[in-house]
């Protein structure tokens, strides 16, 4: 019955559609359709454009809303811990105690003059023998090694020596004293070791083979003159991609570019950035050295005094048109800033300049290139490419594009789109004319845009040129920017400026 029902339903349909079946025998199906399609509708702020064009930079906005392109270089850093480790490594590991009031000169190589040290770890052990025929009670005191302001002391007994066999020995090497938190405060650059060995009848005797051993010391604090050391920062480079991959021709002149060294320092000693090399490379392949007095003198870091242990000090040094030739160099289409900067402690070698270091002290030096988007553009040409696939629209026989641009940016843009083959050879271009102008926004005398300007273009793409679209695998976009309309004034690029690009197409699809 189910089959019957299905049959009669199908019968009814077939009954009505028998003539429709004849449609299968139709030889030609001629269609000619035109579809109007919105392709692109984007509002691009200047921030969007720059973010896409230059991934290595960041944008900042000053108090007036003016945009700044900021490129940052690698940071020079050093930790106080590594400097303190150098000092700790210079401490003697085995100290022989030759008398019951033994003075050890506390001198460290590299002219380091320590007023105070604090251990963060390490171990102190002793070993001593009694060659006397009487047993002794011993007390060892280290008056310059203090734990919570109390000198380190050891008390132990040694049996009498019979004259033969093993010599009675005392040692704590199996449970050495931890040095964490122990301070060394030398007395007149000397550390003393004192002991008393008393026989049962009250006689003071001498001990034999007395040694102290310091194992694996690390320091958390050092105070004094810590020596003149130079720490290499190495060669570094700040890429300015703005002029790199997309740049073809033309110039951009930034009104007031700067390079800043931003310093943060908690080393409690005089420290200086020593500039060995500082130059700008340009798209023309030139390498132009930055000049100025500061290149020779270096940049001194601010540092906290002894009364501000744990604090840091910051400062910034700016290369500008007043102290260097940086403005001229950055106006020459720079590709990168190259620099080789080391850091020197106690740069003047004045041992009377006492300071401090903690294991948490550090310094960092950050280099920042600031290109304020204020200036002029002269025939600045950029090019970029992207993949392209006509997709299911291969059958199109004619096309007409409609481009509408609402430009709120005070820069004229001449645009062309090229269709490229797999070898990046030009097959055709979207516009038959050289480039199509998108007019700059209207601006006031200060170069600030005041009114958005709309440009509309109808771009027919006739059938005889469609093969280029079908074969294209890459779109090449060429944009030529110019501030010619500003009549010589600097234009200002602000955060709220944008351009809206709307592109639609009427495509005609016909049967073959």
């Amino acid at each position: 019955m189910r089959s019957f029902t299905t049959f009669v339903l199908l019968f009814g349909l077939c009954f009505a559609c028998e003539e429709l079946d004849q449609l299968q025998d139709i030889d030609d199906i001629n269609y000619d359709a035109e579809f109007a399609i919105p392709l692109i509708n984007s509002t691009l702020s200047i921030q969007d454009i720059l973010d896409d064009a230059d991934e290595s930079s960041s944008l900042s906005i000053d108090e007036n809303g003016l945009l700044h392109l900021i490129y940052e270089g690698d940071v020079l850093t050093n930790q106080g811990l590594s400097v303190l480790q150098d000092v700790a490594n210079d401490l003697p590991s085995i100290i022989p105690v030759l008398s019951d009031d033994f003075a050890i000169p506390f001198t460290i190589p590299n002219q380091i003059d320590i007023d105070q040290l604090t251990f963060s770890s390490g171990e102190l052990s002793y070993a001593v023998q009694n060659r006397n025929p009487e047993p002794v009670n011993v007390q060892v005191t280290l008056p310059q090694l203090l734990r919570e302001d109390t000198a380190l002391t050891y008390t132990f007994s040694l049996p009498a020596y019979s004259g033969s066999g093993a010599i009675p020995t005392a040692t704590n090497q199996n449970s050495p004293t931890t040095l964490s938190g122990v301070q060394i405060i030398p007395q007149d650059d000397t550390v003393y070791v004192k002991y008393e060995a008393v026989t049962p009848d009250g006689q003071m005797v001498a001990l034999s083979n007395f040694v102290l051993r310091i194992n694996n010391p690390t320091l958390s604090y050092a105070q004094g003159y810590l020596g003149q050391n130079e720490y290499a920062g190495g060669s570094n480079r700040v890429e300015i991609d703005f002029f790199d991959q997309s740049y073809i021709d033309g110039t951009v002149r930034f009104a007031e570019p700067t390079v800043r060294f931003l310093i943060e320092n908690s080393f409690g000693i005089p420290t200086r950035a020593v500039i060995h090399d500082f130059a700008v490379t340009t798209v023309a392949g030139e390498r132009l050295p930055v000049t100025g007095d500061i290149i020779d003198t270096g940049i001194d870091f601010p540092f906290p005094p002894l009364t501000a242990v744990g604090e840091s000090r910051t400062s910034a040094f700016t290369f500008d048109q007043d102290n260097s030739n940086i403005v001229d160099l950055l106006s020459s289409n720079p590709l990168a800033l190259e620099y080789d900067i080391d850091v020197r402690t106690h740069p003047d070698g004045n041992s009377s300049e006492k300071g401090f270091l903690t294991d948490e002290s550090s310094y960092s030096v950050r280099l920042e290139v600031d290109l304020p988007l204020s200036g002029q553009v002269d025939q600045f040409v950029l090019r970029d490419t992207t993949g392209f696939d006509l997709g299911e629209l291969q059958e199109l026989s004619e096309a007409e594009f409609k481009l509408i641009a609402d430009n709120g940016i005070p820069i004229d843009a001449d645009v062309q789109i090229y269709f490229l083959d797999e070898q990046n050879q030009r097959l055709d271009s979207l516009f038959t004319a050289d480039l199509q102008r998108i007019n700059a926004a209207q601006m006031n005398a200060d170069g600030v845009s005041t009114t958005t300007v709309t440009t509309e273009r109808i771009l027919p793409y006739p059938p005889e040129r469609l093969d280029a679209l079908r074969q294209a695998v890459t779109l090449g976009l060429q944009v030529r920017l110019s501030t010619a309309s500003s009549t010589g004034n600097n234009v200002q690029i602000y955060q709220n400026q944008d351009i809206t690009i709307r592109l639609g197409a009427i495509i005609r699809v016909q049967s073959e």
Partner: protein
Amino acid sequence: MRLFLILCLLSISLHSSAQYDLGVHFMRGIWQANYTNPALLPDQRIILSLPGVQNQFSFENVTYNDLVNRQPDGSTALDIDGVIDQLETDNFIRNDLDIPTLGLALRIGDGGLIQAGHRLRAGISTNISRDLLALMWRGNAQFIGQEIAIGPDLFGQAYHEFYAGGAFTVGDFVTLGGRVKVLNGIGSVESSRTEATLFTSDDIYQSTITADYQLNTTGFASFDENSGNNFMLQDIDHLFTRNFGFGIDLGVSANLGPITLRASVLDLGTITWRDNVENQAINGTFTYEGIDVADQPALDSINLDNVVDSLDAFFDVTTTNARFTTSLPTRIFLSGTYQITQGLQLGGLLYGEVFRDRVFPALAVSANWTVSPLFSLGGVYSARRNSYANVGVHTALRLGPVQLVAATDNLLTVFRPDDSATAHLRLGLNLAFGRVEDRTKQSDSNREEDFF
């Protein structure tokens, strides 16, 4: 007899014609006329209706020759552009199928009748607007700056009809009839909301679709999102379902000597669909303005298929499973006949059908000639909206208790099928016993019964 066979064969091969069973309505004493008015009584006391078929197909405003052009070289070409130019705002494509499987009618007394039976009925239609077809075929560029309606109306349902009814004569002249029908739905597809417009901006051709569209399906069709939002015909798993409905037919006939006046209302009723229901709805305003490259920083390649994908993403179809109710297409017959001679009768008919919230009127005139007790022949001219050249024929052959009925409302389909926008055929087979003489005659003479 030869004419009858020729008519039958041509009707079958060429789908025949006739609008809405208009010719059958005028067939005297034939049981199939009762389908158009339950107050019309057959000439026999016992009628056993055997399986038959009635089908009507129509494509408003379009014929096959409009659709297909023959080229000078003999080849054929599809001419959708020509079709579009001929279309009106609304254009229904419709097919209705009626298969009376078995029926029994018994005359009670002189003016009474009881009947019961089963019919399998199915209908499917779509209303395609001219703008929608033009949009699909010629693209949207022709509508830049305009808003057009694009929501197609779709309706189809198949159901079993189990009926029982009767008729009785009031006084000497007026006969009242009616049928009560229990309906069991097999499957349905219905666009319950059809609001959908497309606006193409003249800026850069941004497209805005405003839609309040819902399609309800059950049984034999569903909307398959996974296959690209296409309809999928489903197997009919159950002959009988929980999709029940009810309907009634009402009729009256007044016999005023040589003049008879008739009125009927058919298929007043609804079916509520509960089994395997899916409601697919699109609601809201969707605007496609183009790709926003600022929102796609990773867009490293321009593929125009992306545009198509974005357009597809417009449509967020929501699916529910709420039962729904469909109405039966209700038909109204208002007619009159005048008996010129014993064998010749003229008739006129005003017809109307309420379907998809629209009224489809038709006007018909008919002449029927009872050639002999064995054979009758009739013709009908009908006019309907945008179609004024419909001439149909209907005939009945009586071979003892066997009645064969054939009718078409559009004979032109037989001779020039490619120029016809409609096709109609009814074929019927009855076994009829116990002839009842005409009441007017009976009043004038002794009743004379002839079993055949």
